[in-house]
């Protein structure tokens, strides 16, 4: 019985920790916007619909045809991610967890 209580308590503590760490579990919409810096690089900014930051969210730049990952990283402390613009058609993925993937087509990223 005591063991069950300890396990349940641990689950609740872990659950609370995860909820505090991951704003998307509250159902806020992930948001991402990118722009071409016109110097061969692209910057993306991420966040959530409640205004919370996207710092630490996984970012991927993938080949539009093959899906191969070209660049991988995370949103920085300003909730931004800058990468070298690929020579091939590409997509940007802002991955805020299962069911919360924002994809932006490179063709839609303008100055």
């Amino acid at each position, binding site marked *: 019985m005591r063991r069950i209580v300890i396990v349940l308590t641990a689950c609740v503590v872990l659950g609370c920790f995860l909820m505090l760490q991951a704003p998307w579990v509250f159902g806020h919409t992930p*948001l991402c*916007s990118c*722009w071409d810096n016109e110097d061969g690089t692209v910057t993306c*900014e991420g*966040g959530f619909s*409640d*205004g919370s930051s996207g710092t630490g969210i996984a970012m991927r730049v993938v080949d539009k045809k093959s899906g191969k990952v070209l660049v991988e990283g995370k949103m920085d402390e300003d909730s931004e991610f800058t990468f070298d613009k690929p020579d091939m058609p590409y997509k940007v993925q802002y991955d805020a967890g299962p069911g919360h993937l924002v994809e932006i087509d490179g063709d839609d990223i303008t100055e």
Partner: protein
Amino acid sequence: MRKTGLILLSLLVVVLVFSVPAFAHFQLIYTEESALEKGEEVDLKLVFTHPFEAGHTMDMGMPLEFGVVHKEKKKDLRSKLTPIMFESLTNKGKAYEASYKLRGMGDYIFYVIPEPYYEGSEDIYIQQITKVILNVAGAPTDWDAEIELPVEIVPLDKPYGLWAGNVFRGIVKVNGKPVPYCEIEVEYLNHDIVGNKFSKTEKVEAPQDAFVTLTIKANKDGEFTFGIPCAGWWGFAALGAGGDLTYEGKELSQDAVIWVQAKEMKKFFGQIQNERE
């Protein structure tokens, strides 16, 4: 007898002239769209006019302040202002325009502190301190912030995220303190703005003068609520929010103005259906 007749006729003319309904002056910061998908260059027009009737446009002087607040940072944009002549349905008036590139997600609060305007018919000066809030990509950052204007309407609802039929709520403030029972005039931008003029086509016909400028009042805490009946731009002007002020020896009405944009929900139902088909 003839003299008496002339006097009576003169009096009648005076009464008629001064009984023409005085519709509300509104300082406008106009742009076409307040909720943007992504960062882009936006065109802004600063016009002091009568938005429901597309009526007389007053001459603006160079604004004392014009800027933008984004992520709590204020930026002076006065150097971006270019004078234009804006054409109403009855005249042309001096106004200003500016272009500004929005880069990055979030809210952009554009504000103007105009030079006081002398209104001869009332022998007072009017200064309408105005703001409009644009958003990029849906991320909220500053829309509910007080930006330390002498007078301002602080929104309680996102001014760019309104459906027609929602309410818009705000608090009228002077130097950060609520203004109780402030009178607020509300007007609909009833004519599209095309280039530097009003379109001749009116969207709605007022059944009576009380529907041209709607008047509401704030409560004891300076809060007000307005139900938005249709899509488009709506202006709110809190009259004399600045209190008893004078300018060049005359009364100054320092008003706080905010513009909000509502969208017709049915229009977007149609889009989903079209995409499914």
